[in-house]
């Protein structure tokens, strides 16, 4: 174990945790700048590769942090970096969740819940749209998107086999 490296992982990622408003991907540029240019933990090409690896791995979007931690200090680096990225934000979320649940039934809670629901729906559509824009889909891709949308909307089919199948089609470069 490298105590100095472990400490710099903790100090950087625990601050980044609180800054990651809107999800971990919002701090990717800062993460890249610090890890590549300031600390020289890894090269720019390695950062691009581990970003792709973390995106394709099931689970929360902040797993890229474990990959950086692993490069810096092996298993303990991965564990410590991941915990530093999780704990501050999760503690804040725990506090706000308890206030939100405790206030349920109060007029302001209900007005917030009713008022923000359609905005949340609009933003869900926007996230689908934005991902589609960035994915440079082929015609077959669009057909599959439309079919999946209809299928998941109108049926209770389990999406996991379809996700696995689509991953395999992508792997064979058929989509």
């Amino acid at each position, binding site marked *: 174990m490298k105590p100095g490296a472990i400490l710099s992982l903790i100090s950087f990622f625990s601050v980044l*945790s609180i800054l990651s*408003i809107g*999800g*971990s991907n919002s701090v990717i540029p800062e993460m890249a700048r610090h890890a590549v240019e300031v600390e020289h933990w890894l090269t720019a090409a390695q950062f691009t*590769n581990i970003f*792709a690896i973390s*995106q*394709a*791995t*099931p*689970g*929360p*979007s*902040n*797993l890229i942090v*474990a*990959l950086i931690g692993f490069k810096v200090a092996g298993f303990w680096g*991965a564990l410590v970096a991941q915990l530093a990225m*999780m704990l501050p934000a*999760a503690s*804040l*979320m*725990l506090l*706000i969740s308890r206030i939100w*649940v405790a206030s*349920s*039934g109060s*007029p302001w809670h*209900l*007005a917030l*819940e*009713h*008022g*923000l*629901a*359609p*905005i949340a*729906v*609009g*933003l*869900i*559509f*926007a*996230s*689908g749209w934005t*991902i589609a824009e960035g*994915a440079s889909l082929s015609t077959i891709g669009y057909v*599959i998107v*439309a079919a*999946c*949308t209809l*299928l*998941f909307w109108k049926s*209770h089919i389990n999406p*996991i086999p*379809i*996700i696995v199948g*689509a*991953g395999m089609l992508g*792997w064979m470069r058929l989509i």
Partner: protein
Amino acid sequence: MTPPSCMTEPATKPRLLELALTFNKISLASFGGGLSAWARRVIVEEKKWLDNEEFLSALTLSRVLPGANQMNFAVYVGSRFHGFEGALAAVLGLITIPFLIILALAYAYFVHSTTPAMQDVLHGVTVVAIGLALSMGLKTGEKFLFNPTALLFGALAFAASVFLKLSLIAVLAILGPPAFLVAWRHHPRKKDAS
């Protein structure tokens, strides 16, 4: 903490192990982070732990506050039923297996310098993820179809995000107050059974 009686309670309160296993199931089927369509399917439709409106408000909280959206959502659901222990169980369920997978990939990449064909697999998976997101929009939004105010706010949020490229925080800061005031004026006394 006992939630007030008006919050719709599920038939059975999940046990800690069930929370952990459920969030493990959710995390293993979600790629690229952020997409919560699968979480909604499991939590709202299968388990019936949250109703549609509470899901949407929990999702908005999870997205606005710092941290990975999925992890924040696990904290919300876990703590809703079992306080700190529930949040811990849900988060451990969410993170443990993906963390082990990422360790194996880190080993493969940094020690053996193998780059798996991640980009290609991810591209295929993304196509389904877009379908999941759009279908979730349809499922959560279809009841607003004949509600002009809700349609207006939904459309404005979509346009502000997609065409004006405003951040989530900016969209909520601009549209949140008027939406809150309109809902406040209607003075809802109890939740719609949805």
